[in-house]
């Protein structure tokens, strides 16, 4: 579904991604872990071209999205993204947050979009918040709304950029629960996170990144139980 070839990215003099090759298949739940500054967020953000790679090619569902001729706006409709800072639109109500893109892009009529939004809100138990504004919500609620805002576009893959890092500890669970539900429904997911429990439970594959490379990858059981790379051993000893 996503094929990444020799991805490179520098910020100034700093080499953030140093040649990444990876293939993500439909239905996979890939969790990316690694120390801060290892390039994992940049890697994720390259997948929907929020960061434009300096070198390398990314294929999504057969389209070369790093090709300048590809209309990235069409591609992004099929790639939902969830941010660390939620990035809900504070001037719009929850309902408008969810329905804005589907309506303005002409994917759904206003009625269809509202219908879909109500279904999604009901699913996360926040139907009563449809007319609330984002700053009336808790962090966990905001992030769950941000997730269903992405789902309202019916994406083929969901990208999560440290979705629980900005949350109070007691709110992490509700967000992870929703992500696990998505995973169980077969959504293809790429998740950058520090939540190792989530990685163990949900991931079909865990990638460990360090200094702009994927230095080790395996199933979660193998990766956490039998790490081989010294950097991974060191990383795991610090966080587990």
């Amino acid at each position, binding site marked *: 579904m996503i094929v990444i070839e020799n991805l490179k990215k520098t910020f100034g003099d700093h080499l953030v991604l140093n040649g990444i090759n990876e293939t993500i298949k439909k239905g996979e739940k890939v969790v990316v872990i690694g120390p801060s500054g290892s390039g994992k967020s940049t890697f994720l953000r390259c997948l929907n071209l*929020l960061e434009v790679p300096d070198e390398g090619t990314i294929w999504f569902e057969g389209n070369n999205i790093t090709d300048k001729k590809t209309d990235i706006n069409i591609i992004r*409709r099929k790639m*939902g993204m969830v941010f660390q*800072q939620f*990035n809900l639109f504070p001037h719009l109500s929850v309902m408008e947050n969810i329905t804005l*893109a589907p309506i303005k892009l002409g994917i759904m009529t206003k009625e269809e979009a509202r219908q879909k939004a109500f279904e999604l809100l009901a699913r996360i138990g926040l139907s009563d918040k449809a007319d609330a504004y984002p700053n009336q919500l808790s962090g966990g609620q905001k992030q769950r709304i*941000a997730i269903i*805002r992405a789902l309202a576009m019916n994406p083929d893959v969901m990208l999560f950029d440290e979705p629980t890092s900005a949350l109070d500890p007691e709110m992490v669970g509700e967000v992870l629960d929703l992500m696990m539900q998505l995973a169980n429904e077969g959504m293809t997911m790429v998740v950058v996170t520090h939540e190792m429990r989530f990685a163990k439970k949900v991931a079909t594959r865990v990638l460990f990144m360090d200094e702009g490379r994927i230095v080790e990858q395996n199933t979660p059981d193998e990766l956490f139980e039998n790490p081989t790379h010294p950097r991974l051993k060191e990383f795991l000893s610090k966080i587990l």
Partner: protein
Amino acid sequence: MNIVTDWFVEIYKSFYRAIVPDRRYLAYLNGVKVTLLISFFAILLGIAIGIIVAVVKVTAKESRMKWLMGICDLYITVIRGTPLMVQLLIIYNLIFTSRNTSEIAVGAICFGINSGAYVAEIIRAGIDSIDKGQMEAGRSLGLNYIQTMRLIIMPQAIKNILPALGNEFITLIKETSVASVIAVTEVTKAAQYIGSRTYDVLPPLIIAAACYLIMVVGLSKLLGKIERRMARSDRN
């Protein structure tokens, strides 16, 4: 006691002379109308120019359109670096040389071009004040750059800069008094004209000042209302 009474009678008479005979009040009303017309169209033009210049400056920062940014910078530098009255005279004499151009239109265009430079800087600051994540969130949903700007960034930016914009518009209304140098009969010019007829310059000028005050207070009230309405999403 008598002196004080006489003084008040004298003041009353001067103001009476400045307002009533020859239906002079109509001259003020006309002046107010012209002032409002110039201000209104200048504000519209200023906002239009301001938005375009601001968006170009913000956009050009991260793309190849460096030359466009140069033009915008030049425009802002020249407008902000030269006096409004000189700009007005230059535009009036140089560009609109034909005799049958409407002075009001010239005034509105000139003040609009002038205001645009200030509005552009205000809007640019407003756009910069919006978190980068908002643009990313919009783009990640498949909205293009312009849609994201229009639907997500601008509404928030304008809410943030409304007080600063209000100041700019208030300044603009007052600065239209300069338009008298290109023979536009707005309030100030009307007052001067009446003063020259009654040989008593002060009362008409005070009346003109009152007219400006009323217009500015009216605008402030209007802006306050809009600000409160836009603050809807801020309630907790």
